[in-house]
């Protein structure tokens, strides 16, 4: 196990109400999420000495601004550009700063008008994209501007090589939509999905139809990390950070010419070593799900099913309640909401605290969970949490 293992804990989680049109600024939404996380932990804004956030193309508000209107002056603020895996990587930064003795308690948030504001992969000036994205002039002239297309290139070849079918993608979507029907705060609550409907839905860009893609919404989430010692004074049941692993692979950020491996393949071994556990010990999961196939690829990478058997694993219902690995149990980004992964981590924390005890939402007796982040095939960040 790593030296930092179980020395820090997540003690607070919170969000604002997600919607298609918030009518609020990212600052307003972040304030609501931060106040809810503080209340969850039983902490005051002045207890925070670090605040961090991630954003894509400047779609959030700066940490210093959030601090201003929480009425506090933390020692340390940090705003990074990032999407998937940034939740895990900023939690890693917080743990390192706490373990170094520089900070005590850190709030990490993600706030975005992902529906009414700017949407990932849409509405940008094509020439700006050519200049902004590395290799952009080799992508945009061919109409390649969307993550559906970038990740689809990996999916097409992987599906052909490992026997994954469109039905298998459908099982991922249907499993997560089923979770969403138990979560009144999920965006697609009340909108279940069956295989017939799924298969009848035309592709946006192969192999993905609308159900294979995450729901883009206006939403803010917040997480509070503190030392295990401080956690004893918090109101909530602490969820300890048992292990973590970051990883990049591939040359270039969007022009990927090698689709046979992904960063998650390399993050897995370090992740399990750092926490001193094995894949079969994990009881509940938050698997990054910007697209259905990304879940299948990570199930393979993190050792939950062998290459070639991942489709059967999800078809057998293993991502559902009562399965071997209940995953994204609030509905995931495919049907609950989308904050580049943070909403999935909030749900994992709630499962490990047994917040849903005595209801049909609780994964029974879960003590150990995994959160996987996917910034792309080329960048991963993952962590293992225990209660």
């Amino acid at each position: 196990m790593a030296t930092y293992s179980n020395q820090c804990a997540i003690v607070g989680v919170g969000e604002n109400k997600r919607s298609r049109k918030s009518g609020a600024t990212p600052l307003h939404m972040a304030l609501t999420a931060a106040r809810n996380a503080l209340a969850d932990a039983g902490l005051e804004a002045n207890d925070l000495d670090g605040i961090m956030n991630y954003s894509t193309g400047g779609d959030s508000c700066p940490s210093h601004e959030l601090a201003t209107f929480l009425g506090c002056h933390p020692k340390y603020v940090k705003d990074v550009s990032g999407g998937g895996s940034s939740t895990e990587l900023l939690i890693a930064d917080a743990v390192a700063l706490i373990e170094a003795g520089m900070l005590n308690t850190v709030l990490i948030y993600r706030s975005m008008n992902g529906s009414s504001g700017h949407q990932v992969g849409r509405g940008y000036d094509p020439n700006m994209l050519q200049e902004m994205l590395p290799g952009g002039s080799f992508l945009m002239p061919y109409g390649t501007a969307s993550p559906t297309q970038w990740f689809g290139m990996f999916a097409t070849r992987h599906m052909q090589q490992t026997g994954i079918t469109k039905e298998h993608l459908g099982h991922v979507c249907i499993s997560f939509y089923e979770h969403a029907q138990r979560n009144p705060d999920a965006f697609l609550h009340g909108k279940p999905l069956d295989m017939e409907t799924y298969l009848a839905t035309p592709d946006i860009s192969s192999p993905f139809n609308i159900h294979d893609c995450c729901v883009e919404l206006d939403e803010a989430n917040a997480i509070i990390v503190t030392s295990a010692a401080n956690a004893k004074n918090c109101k909530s049941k602490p969820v300890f950070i048992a292990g973590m692993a970051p990883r990049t692979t591939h040359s270039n950020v969007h022009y990927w010419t090698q689709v046979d491996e992904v960063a998650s393949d390399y993050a897995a071994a370090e992740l399990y070593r750092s926490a001193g556990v094995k894949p079969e010990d994990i009881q509940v999961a938050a698997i990054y799900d910007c697209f259905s196939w990304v879940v299948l690829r990570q199930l393979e990478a993190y050792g939950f099913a062998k290459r070639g058997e991942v489709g059967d694993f999800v078809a057998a219902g293993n991502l559902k309640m009562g399965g071997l690995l209940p995953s994204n149990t609030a509905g995931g980004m495919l049907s609950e909401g989308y904050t580049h992964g943070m909403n999935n981590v909030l749900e994992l924390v709630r499962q490990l605290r047994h917040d849903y005890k005595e209801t049909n939402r609780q994964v029974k007796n879960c003590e150990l969970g995994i959160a996987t982040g996917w910034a792309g095939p080329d960048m991963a960040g993952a962590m293992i949490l225990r209660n």
Partner: protein
Amino acid sequence: MSTKTEYEKPIPLKNGDNQPYWDAADQHELKLQKCAACRSFIHPPGPACPTCGNPETEWELLGSDISATVYSYVVSYRPFLPGFQHDLPTIITVASLDAAPEVKLMANIINCDAKTVKIGMPLKMTWVDITEDRALPQWVSAKE
């Protein structure tokens, strides 16, 4: 003034790193950047070699007879950028060059029924004149 219909899609922007590639494309030729130290091809071009980090690079002309095979592909049914609404569905492939299989070039497969595209399908490079002085490398099926 050109009498041709105005080209609506993004036109490749030249910069200090990629200019030799696009200048050659305008002449209907493929030119690739190469590392002067480890001899790896560098694509897309850049300020150094991603394989070894060496900053000295040179350019190699591969000519106009370029064959490749489909390494992977997607078929897009919606336009994500201007101009593509006229060309749906759009087939985008990453194709592995026969002369250097480790080099993979992304482009559309044009004049092709999307249902016939398969991994391993043989391709030939063609160049489409998109403005009076610019041309865009594209792939066509080699079976024709």
